[in-house]
């Protein structure tokens, strides 16, 4: 069965992504970053902030992928079924 740790992992990452997306887009939070100064890495602050949020989402995905790799969730073997009159059979 899909274990509790895996479910917790998915919920944890879902919350993380939601928070980053709120920071990236929502009124109030986004407004604070919607300005030119200070310039960071040669970019106006608004663009730097956007790329920072996208990078945080990307890093989250990388981290999630590595955890799933260790948990063996990426190499799922799927048995294929074929319908017949009795409702199906293994192919």
């Amino acid at each position, binding site marked *: 069965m899909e274990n509790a740790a895996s479910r917790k992992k998915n919920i944890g990452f*879902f919350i993380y992504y939601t928070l980053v997306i709120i920071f990236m*887009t929502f009124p109030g939070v986004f407004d604070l970053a919607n300005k030119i100064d200070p310039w960071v890495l040669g970019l106006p602050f608004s663009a730097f902030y956007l790329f920072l949020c996208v990078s945080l*989402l990307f890093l989250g995905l990388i981290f999630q992928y590595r955890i799933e790799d260790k948990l063996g969730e990426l190499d799922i073997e799927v048995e294929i079924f074929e319908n017949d009159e009795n409702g199906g059979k293994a192919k």
Partner: protein
Amino acid sequence: MILIPLSMIFLFFVVMLVIIRKQLGVSSFEEYATASRSFGFFAITFSVLATWCVGAMYTAWAGMAITYGFTALYCVAYAAITMIIMYFVAPKTYIWGKKYGITTQSELLGFRYQSKTVRVLTGIWGIVFTIPWLIVEIVTQGYVFEYASDGTISQFWGMVLGLAVITLFVSLGGMKSVISANVFQGIVLIFGSTALMVYFVYKFVGGFGAGFEMASTQFPDMLTFPGPGWDPPTPYWTSIVILSGLGGFMWPWAYNKLFAGDSLRSIKVSALLSPIIYAIFFSSFVFTAIFLHSQEQVLADVQGAFLYVAKESGPFALGMLGVIIMANSVGTVSGIMQAISTTVSRDIAQVLKSNISDKKAINIARISVVIISILSLFFGTLDLGLMVFLALFTYDGITLLFPVVALGLFWKRANKEGAITGLIAGTALSMFLRFFNPSFIDSLGWQPGVYGLILSILIMVVAGYAKSPSIFDEKLWKETNEVFGKNSSNLTKPLAKLDNVVE
């Protein structure tokens, strides 16, 4: 002058056809629809990118980027959200697709909800909201031929040329040739476009540092939301990022690529790579557009701006931009045509008449491709002002598939009554607000799709709590969890497929 750009575009088509020549010809409908689930992460990544990036980016989106600047970067933000959606929907889509022989997004939803109505309805949604994009892209191809040949090839014959090639390889090779072509198109457009944008930046403004310095002194508004000349409230930004992000992977031409993956790992790796590649590619495009805001001739025709600067840069630059736009456009059109033809054959024809043979299903799909091409050509010759308008607002409709997909995959209580009612009511509200545009839409900033989405989710949640999950749902969840737990060998009697279900 016209020989070089035209030769480059024709060379692009020739190389593409040479690359996919061995992929033409399919032996089963599953091969036509999913390429027998045989593609690895590299192919899926570039296929998703090639299908997703549209040729109109260099016309309609160029207009937005040159006029409003930073706001156009919403595409980078929403791409990241879309790929997270792809990452999360991949496991169950892959498992159910492979286990139960599912080949399309609509078939997946019909199976999950055990409803032929859901299957047909979502298929129709996918087609209806896709068609404006298809036509805009075909017109873009005609426009590029006309521009590159300096009018020698008219827009109509340009459309015919582009469509003829696409119809050929989509109808003969299905998903296999579409993805093979997409890999080539994706590489050309991602690397070609980024290189060309860097070239434009150095040629016209002397580099990125100089460009930003100029922008910050001459037109600083371009570097923040919303940009010069308009003043929408921040929820406008929130809306376009969230709606596009949630809807971006709901297009059947993007979603169906999940069925072509050879493993879950391949699909997840492509979900990791795509947003970063896209962010680099699209940012270079937007920054170039922001810097070009300084050119008076560019501001006179913002939608033709990139073709203008390419022409000013010489025949090779014009040819390169023509090839890039064509790669974008052919990738999208071929993906759309393959998805529509598969939906017509699998989700509409086979639902209406269940005893269609595999060979007949392939033929229906092929005939659909030819009919779609002819119809698109016809609509492409009409006044497209309305079509572009419709294309830009199709997200209001396609986003409404998100609750049906997400709740269907992750919430056992989601049921067909909620899915059907939510989809219809949410889309109706969204379209009503879009076309009648009450004053609160502009004053508050939240776009119509947001209201439709909230209504749709509410309906699905209420319907979900109104009755218990069916025996099918319980069993499906149990079997899926067992697959996750690698206990598939302990499965008992498998679930009946949709074809055996009487609604």
